[in-house]
């Protein structure tokens, strides 16, 4: 079966009178069904450009993007996609509820279902009090959340989100992360961009790292977290009454050390992995050249 999202050798150059910017260079990757794929890179790396190409808002100079095997230049592929643009702008003369109804209508959803989904999402994203107010009066974070609601109202199998967590307060960030993880639990595929490393750590199965338009690496996140363990901090007491001691143990010596402590009647009070910061890994890749 074809991938929910696949890019092959996508390139895009912006040409203006004075400058040429290679925004995206020969980017290829495939997102598997049911995974959360993080697209990580600093500002100006080419994330939004890639996403705009996927959504057919701009045209690639070379290469193709496909949704379930169909070129994304076809409007019908967007039936399967929920899209949140970067800092979304939504018709501000409508109310939040009206906008969701409009989007539901475009997707051809039945009236009853639109209302049900719309209430559900407004509630979930804590927008219910503002539902009947003009979007004009929304704060940046509210707009972002409404943007997310309109992206998932039709329960699409693929989500494409450009910086979904930007402009949100800490509580809403958690809310949105939970929502993304929930979508995965329901079998959906999520592709989202971010410039914040910790966003990737928590939720992603895989991460693609882009810089200067070049896809530097595509990695699974879990092994990275595991491999990152450099040592264990062990706190123990030799006897019930004696003072606690702390030692650092390398992963290879962990078992022998544990046995040594417990066999002499000591008790382990704390065992904690010490990670090489994931951030270091990403920064290493990003700073490579």
């Amino acid at each position: 079966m074809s991938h929910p999202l696949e890019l092959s050798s996508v390139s895009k150059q912006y040409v203006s009178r004075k400058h040429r910017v290679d925004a995206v260079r020969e980017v290829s990757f495939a997102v598997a069904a049911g995974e959360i794929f993080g697209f990580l890179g600093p500002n100006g790396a080419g994330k939004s450009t890639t996403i705009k190409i996927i959504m057919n808002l701009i045209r690639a100079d070379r290469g193709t993007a496909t949704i379930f095997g169909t070129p994304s230049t076809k409007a019908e592929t967007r039936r399967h996609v929920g899209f949140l643009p970067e800092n979304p702008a939504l018709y501000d003369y409508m109310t939040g509820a009206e906008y969701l109804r409009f989007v539901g209508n475009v997707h051809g959803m039945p009236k009853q279902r639109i209302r049900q989904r719309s209430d559900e999402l407004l509630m979930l994203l804590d927008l219910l009090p503002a539902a009947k107010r003009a979007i004009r009066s929304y704060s940046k974070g509210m707009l972002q959340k409404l943007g997310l609601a309109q992206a998932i109202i039709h329960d699409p199998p693929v989500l494409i989100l450009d910086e979904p967590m930007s402009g949100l307060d800490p509580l809403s960030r958690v809310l949105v992360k939970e929502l993304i993880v929930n979508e995965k639990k329901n079998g959906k595929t999520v592709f989202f961009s971010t410039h914040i490393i910790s966003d990737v750590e928590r939720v992603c199965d895989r991460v693609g790292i882009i810089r200067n338009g070049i896809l530097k690496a595509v990695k699974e996140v879990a092994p990275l977290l595991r491999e990152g363990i450099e040592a264990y901090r062990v706190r123990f007491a030799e006897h019930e009454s004696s003072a606690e001691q702390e030692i650092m143990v390398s992963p290879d010596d962990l078992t022998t050390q544990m046995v040594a402590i417990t066999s002499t009647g000591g008790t382990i009070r704390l065992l904690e992995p010490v990670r090489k910061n994931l951030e270091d890994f990403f920064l290493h890749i990003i700073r490579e050249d």
Partner: protein
Amino acid sequence: MKNILRITILGIMRDRVFHGITVAALVFGLVPVISQLSMRQVTELALTLSLSLTSFLLLLLSVFLGGVSLWKDIDRRYAYSILGLPLRRSDYVLGKYLGIVSFILLTATVLGIVGALFSYSAIGVYPPNRPVLWENYVYAIFFDVLKYALLVSFAFLFSTISTSFFLPMFGAVCIFFVGSSSQEAYNYVNSPEAAALHPAAKSAITALYYVLPNFGAFDFKTNAIYSIPMDYQGLMLTFVYFCCYVSIVLGLAVILFNRRQL
């Protein structure tokens, strides 16, 4: 397309454009006053004023709405969210276009009725020599609407290639003035007075006459004002002309918008 049409009209309404129109319609109150001041040809004057005022307001509407609508969606990035939905770009452009034209038609209907009522009140006092043909009045306004629908399609065409509202707005104004006088220019070129004109200039003007829209063909105001019977074949011809022309311009706009990088 239907959805886009609906929200376009909603947007125009919410932007209080209609309030502006209502205020402007109050100017129609002057129609009976001015006409009666003239004491002579009250009917003709009242109808002329009503039709011209309606036409002028429709012109403002079409230049403003036609020039701004698409541009604003692109400029404020509303288009990103809209085109991320499973909508073809052609449906989006045509939906917006039909929304604006529907609004212009609605406005024309309202203004037409208001104008007719005020004219009627003026005429009541000074009965005309010839009975007014209200049917002609309706035709005059309807073809005015078609004229502005054509103008809006030009504004859309310019919007698809422009990154500012300057080209759509001023382009539409230019098209309007050139298109309104192209018939006269053509007639002049083919008249004996133009014998001295260079043949190249003549053919250039003739070519322009065929390429640019001929808004003069949509003007049936004299039939309404002087109660001259309608030439139905002429109406039909103009209607067919409108359909062909507007299809070409909108077709072009859609093709260009399909290639547009947002």
